[in-house]
């Protein structure tokens, strides 16, 4: 994604954040779908550290999303999905995503005011 007059570092960062949160939501949903699947290890998604580094370098579009397997202890069936954690994370994740969307919309609202189209 290029940074142009309309799309600046802020919108690029928010775009990356929404992307990362979407990936995390998918991983959480997958974990919940595999709640009782034998030998399934929960997936954990991280994009914040990469996004922070990319922001410090001045180009948020360089941020990447990484996924790893949870190191939590497994149950007898070799599965380590923790349902309380996943449902909590799912709620929090959606709220974070809504927050990022609101910020993006606020940014666009500013732009609309600037171009005289409220």
């Amino acid at each position, binding site marked *: 994604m290029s940074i142009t007059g309309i799309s600046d570092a802020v919108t690029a960062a928010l775009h990356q954040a929404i992307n990362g949160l979407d990936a995390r939501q998918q991983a959480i949903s997958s974990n919940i*779908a595999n709640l009782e699947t034998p030998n399934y290890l929960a997936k954990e998604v991280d994009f914040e550290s990469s996004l922070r580094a990319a922001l410090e370098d001045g180009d948020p579009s360089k941020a990447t999303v990484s996924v790893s397997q949870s190191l939590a202890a497994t149950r007898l069936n070799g599965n380590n999905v923790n349902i309380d954690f996943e449902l909590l994370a799912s709620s929090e994740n959606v709220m974070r995503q809504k927050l990022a969307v609101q910020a993006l919309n606020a940014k666009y609202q500013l732009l609309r005011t600037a171009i005289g189209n409220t």
Partner: protein
Amino acid sequence: MSAIFGILDVAKSGMGVYKTWLNAVADNIANIDDVTDTSTPAFQERFVQVQAVEDGTGFGHGAAVVGAEFGDPNGRVTYDPNHPLADANGLVRRPDVDLTDQMVYLQLAQRGYQANVQAFERARDAYESILTIGK
């Protein structure tokens, strides 16, 4: 990222898996008192085999039923000489299904299904918010 609104598919796959499990448990319980004569195999308990699905993104793409396994066809041979199906020694065959096990599976499958419904609703929430971008 996979298909548009892909997380809904992930939650749907989870609901499908737990619904299949519920079906299997219901079938096991429905047949728990089946009696056969000793020359016929007993009702075999149904087990559902489930595997995680990957879509190349690494974030996972839900779960899928990949097959079924069946319990012991020998069942439990019990002495019941008054039963019409009893053989010369007074034996009949009953399925080797434990009701306590089935009730536990029933709870697990039901809670799993409910959790996936929640995951579906959360994903829908998130997509609804994303659809407001630019409004």
